[in-house]
């Protein structure tokens, strides 16, 4: 074997090993894809719907989705069997929420309680995410207005239109922790142009707390409360507290709960809850949400 062939041989052998080495490296599809950067992933489904129970949740209505919501609050349970535990008296809110954009929802509704129309704008400033460039919480802003449509009489001051109006603004800061538990805090400001008595305060501040604990994929326990920190009238305004279960069935979300509040918008359940859990003044209520797809979904950011 002369030197040249030897050198040639070595080159070939080393080349072939290099080759197999290179092939080995490329062998695995997983490795091939693993070269991609870790992706930012938004955290979804912190709550089953855009309301915890009474108040807004950190979830939005999806883009192009119309959420038709029917809320019912019955009479007090302690009415007993003569009142069918409150089922004889029902007040309701019928509302529509529409997702204009994944971070913008508009809503409108009408409550029988106080004969009130309400509308709101909900904007998600930032969405909780994980992975690269993640953010630990979702932050949202909601502003809404309410209008009573009660008949004008000489004694009720409603001839002045502005007296019919109320406003609410809140910020939600929420976090889904793992896939079972979600917690959110929502400082809320409520203003009513007209209040019932001079000892009532036109302005109120409450700090809402909403939580969800998933029991199964389709069922969860929920808590929604708004302790009032400013503006409550002594022995009249009580803070709303609702406890319930979320049940999901196909296209519906069904929320069954007990609550001491009849109001079904922020102004009403913060400003006009006069029932007291301590005295057993609670009632059964349910929320039913049915979504309709108006614009076809193209969201690939799952």
């Amino acid at each position, binding site marked *: 074997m002369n030197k040249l062939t030897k050198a040639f041989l070595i080159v070939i*052998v080393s080349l*072939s090993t290099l080759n*197999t080495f290179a092939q080995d490296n*490329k062998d695995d599809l997983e490795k091939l894809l693993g070269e991609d950067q870790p992706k930012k992933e938004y955290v*979804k489904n912190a709550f089953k719907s855009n309301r915890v129970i009474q108040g807004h949740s950190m979830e939005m209505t999806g*883009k*192009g989705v119309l959420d038709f919501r029917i809320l019912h609050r019955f009479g007090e349970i302690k009415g007993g069997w003569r009142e069918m535990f409150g089922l004889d008296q029902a007040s309701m809110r019928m509302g529509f929420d529409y997702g204009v954009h994944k971070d913008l929802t508009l809503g409108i509704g009408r409550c029988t309680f106080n004969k009130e129309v309400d509308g709101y704008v909900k904007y998600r400033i930032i969405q909780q995410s994980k992975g690269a460039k993640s953010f630990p919480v979702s932050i949202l802003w909601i502003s809404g207005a309410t209008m009573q449509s009660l008949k004008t009489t000489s004694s009720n001051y409603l001839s002045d239109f502005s007296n019919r109006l109320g406003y609410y603004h809140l910020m939600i800061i929420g976090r889904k922790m793992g896939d079972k538990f979600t917690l959110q805090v929502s400082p809320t400001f409520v203003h009513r142009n007209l209040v019932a008595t001079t000892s009532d305060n036109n302005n109120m501040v409450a700090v809402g707390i909403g939580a969800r604990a998933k029991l199964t994929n389709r069922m969860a326990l929920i808590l929604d409360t708004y302790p009032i920190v400013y503006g409550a009238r002594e022995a009249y305004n009580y803070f709303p507290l609702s406890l319930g279960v979320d049940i999901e069935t196909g296209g519906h979300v069904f929320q069954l709960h007990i609550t001491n509040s009849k109001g079904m918008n922020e102004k009403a359940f913060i400003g006009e809850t006069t029932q007291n859990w301590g005295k057993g003044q609670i009632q059964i209520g349910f929320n039913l949400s049915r979504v309709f797809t108006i614009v076809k979904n*193209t969201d*690939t950011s*799952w």
Partner: protein
Amino acid sequence: MKKLLFSLILLTSLQTQAQKYFTKTGTIIFNSKSPVEKIEGVNKATACLLDTRTGAIDFIVQIKSFVFDKQLMQEHFNENYLESDKFPKANFKGVITNHTAINFTKDGEYNAEVVGKMTLHGVTKDVKFTGKISIKSGKVTITSTQMLLLEDYKISIPNAVKDKVSKDVKISVNTTLELMK
């Protein structure tokens, strides 16, 4: 000596002939028959690697990349059925049993049979699929339609919708691979 050299050259040339085809943008359509509404999700980010020398074929599918017309359906697909937070990927690792009969360098169409292991929803099963492999201007297209029984992969259907959702789903694969450089 010359023989040795020759065989060595032959070996290396054989090795360079080992060709791999790859894609990150294959399509998989998930389709469930339902008398009530169309349940169909389209995934256009399916990764596939094919080694024409050994016939080895791998798929990796990101569950979260399935897009449904209805957002709620997509949510249920991820949250309730496939549990994509827990099991983000489905994969298949197998071999084309008749790969030697396929000439990957020439345009043509072949029936192919693939055996291997599929992992979906955290459950791994031995599977056998049939499909078509067509070669056109250096690109390899794999198409296949299979029925999967949800039960096999421990994907449960809640009682409330048992009569609205079928027990098996149709999986259609259509992926075009390009030669890896």
